[in-house]
């Protein structure tokens, strides 16, 4: 067998050929791709199943996902200083306000979305577009507890000794605590009454956990009642857990999940195509089905029967919060929560 002799010339020729081939590969994907930050878990799975194939089919754009929670996206984008590690954010209202304040988003032109007319009024602004709604209320196990009526029931017997809580780290945790505080005379900017009341029953509370562990704690029977969103309730029910969603007397809380283009992104065109695909009726409808259980924002989608409202317009009556007022106070609340509930 003759040994292969690689001269410098041969090497350069083959290297050039390889490089050229790679470029050709690039041409085949001329429409390119978009890198989107994505909530890990349900969101990532649902987007992989429903958004990736449709975006590829209709716009020939590849969707790459970076699994990150909202707060992590803001921290990463801020640390990257103008060279964002992804093109599109997906955020809850609190981090959205932080992103606007810190100038992390590209100016958004809602008119570039073909589905704009199908979205409720105010769903898009110059920072981004609403892609899903979340409704927060009480989730409880009907086999073990009587049905709670209001937020204050959470701190009363028999519910309190089965209560699972999270702190101010998450959006749903923060708004739920604000709502509890309101029932005791507090407000959006004053959660003092919550701290007064929780102190009285703290030793009875079944679990004060990490947000990510709450579904597991509920599934394992460590807690049988908690504040949560409809999506988590539907997902747990899908796994055979006994859990029911209750709209508290004072009203369920609604907030919206929005998407934004990262300032400095080079894939702006593809980001708009991505957003447009996400809010399109077929995708929104698919995302609403189990096991995804999203609340859609496209008017053409008929709402699922187990949602606590029959139309999107009804959500206008739900409790809403102003996160530009909440954000500056949150650090203090988190510190207070640590000190009050730590053993």
């Amino acid at each position, binding site marked *: 067998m003759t040994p292969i002799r690689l001269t410098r010339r041969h090497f350069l020729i083959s290297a050039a050929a390889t490089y050229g081939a790679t470029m050709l590969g690039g041409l085949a994907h001329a429409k390119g791709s978009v890198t989107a930050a994505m909530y890990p878990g349900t969101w990532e799975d649902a987007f992989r199943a429903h958004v990736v194939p449709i975006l590829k089919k209709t716009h020939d754009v590849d969707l790459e996902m970076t699994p990150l*929670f909202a*707060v*992590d996206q*803001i*921290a990463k984008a*801020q640390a990257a200083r103008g060279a964002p590690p992804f093109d599109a954010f997906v955020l809850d209202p609190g981090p959205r306000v*932080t992103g606007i304040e810190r100038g992390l988003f590209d100016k958004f032109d809602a008119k570039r979305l073909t589905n704009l007319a199908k979205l409720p009024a105010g769903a898009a602004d110059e920072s981004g577009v609403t892609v899903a709604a979340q409704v927060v209320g009480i989730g409880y196990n009907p086999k073990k507890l009587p049905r709670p009526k209001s937020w204050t029931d959470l701190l009363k017997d028999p519910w309190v000794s089965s209560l699972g*809580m*999270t*702190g*101010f*780290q998450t959006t749903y945790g923060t708004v739920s605590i604000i709502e509890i505080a309101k029932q005791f005379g507090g407000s959006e900017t004053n959660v003092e009454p919550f701290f007064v009341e929780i102190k009285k029953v703290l030793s009875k509370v*079944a*679990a*004060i*956990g*990490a947000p*990510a*562990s709450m579904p*597991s*704690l509920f599934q*394992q*029977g*460590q807690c049988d009642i908690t504040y949560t969103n409809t999506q988590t309730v539907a997902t747990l029910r899908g796994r055979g857990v006994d859990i029911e969603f209750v709209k508290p007397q004072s009203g369920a809380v609604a907030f919206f999940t929005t998407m934004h283009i990262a300032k400095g992104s080079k894939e702006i065109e593809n980001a708009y195509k991505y957003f447009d695909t996400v809010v399109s009726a077929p995708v929104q409808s698919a995302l609403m089905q189990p096991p995804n259980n999203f609340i859609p924002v496209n008017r053409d989608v008929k709402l699922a029967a187990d949602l606590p409202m029959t139309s999107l317009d009804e959500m206008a009556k739900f409790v809403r919060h102003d996160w530009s007022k909440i954000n500056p106070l*949150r*650090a203090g609340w*988190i510190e207070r*929560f*640590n*000190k009050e*509930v*730590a*053993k």
Partner: protein
Amino acid sequence: MTPAARAGVSSPWRPPAVMRPAEWQLALPLAVAYAAFFLVPLGLLIVVSAFDDEKITTVGFAQWRKFLGDPFYWKVILDTVKLGFFTVVATALIGYPLALVYLGAGPRWQRVILFVVILPLLTSVVVRTFAWIVILGREGVINQSLLWLGLVPAPLRLLQTEHGLVIALTQIEMPLLLLPLLSVMSRMDPNLRDASAGLGASKWRTLFRITLPLSLPGLVAGCMLVFASSTTAFISQFVIGGNRLVYLPLLIWQQSLVVYNWPLAAVTALTLLVSVGLGVAAIAAVGRRRRAYA
């Protein structure tokens, strides 16, 4: 003095270490990586901690004063060190007897023990941590068994308690203690223990005067790893401890990723670094002392 010289054997002349470039050059890639990915970020951390405000504009030590002037944070530091201490004690008390079994076992059983020790490392720490929710929960394996045996009238609270967390960390960190310990044990000369027995020493005397001192370097190395790993085990601490148990890693996460107060996060991170460093140094010092006795 080189070992050869100590043994009284004349060794061929070799150039002094500084003149042999090939050897230290081997460490260069690691040294460069270490400088770029550890020392530079560490420097940044120190710089960031010396700012007063979240936007990192005003230089000052307000965050240090806030952190060190608050008894709550001192308690968090103490709790973090205490957690590491308890985990080290528990892993050492459970792990050392297993190491003795390993020492007395034949080659085949030694391989089995080693495999069982390494087995947990093959699953992710996240999976192991969530498995502990199933075990420690109110309707978990432990409580169900205790109730079934009639040992307790109502389920015990194990999740979100310090002892529950120590139990879980003991299992999670066990391989870190055992691997260095077993490697030292397997190199131990079995004749020494036979000689001790032949000279009339009891099993206990042999254990305390021969086996323990000889295995001490492995035990100390294992304890240091367990201490450093358990005090910084954010996932296990947060998932099993919840918000009821606050440790330094939770504060770092809250300040850096939820509140975006990076100076305070940097202060907390440096505090964790120093307290873990001191803990590890203390274990090393205890190890040196014991060896001097032996």
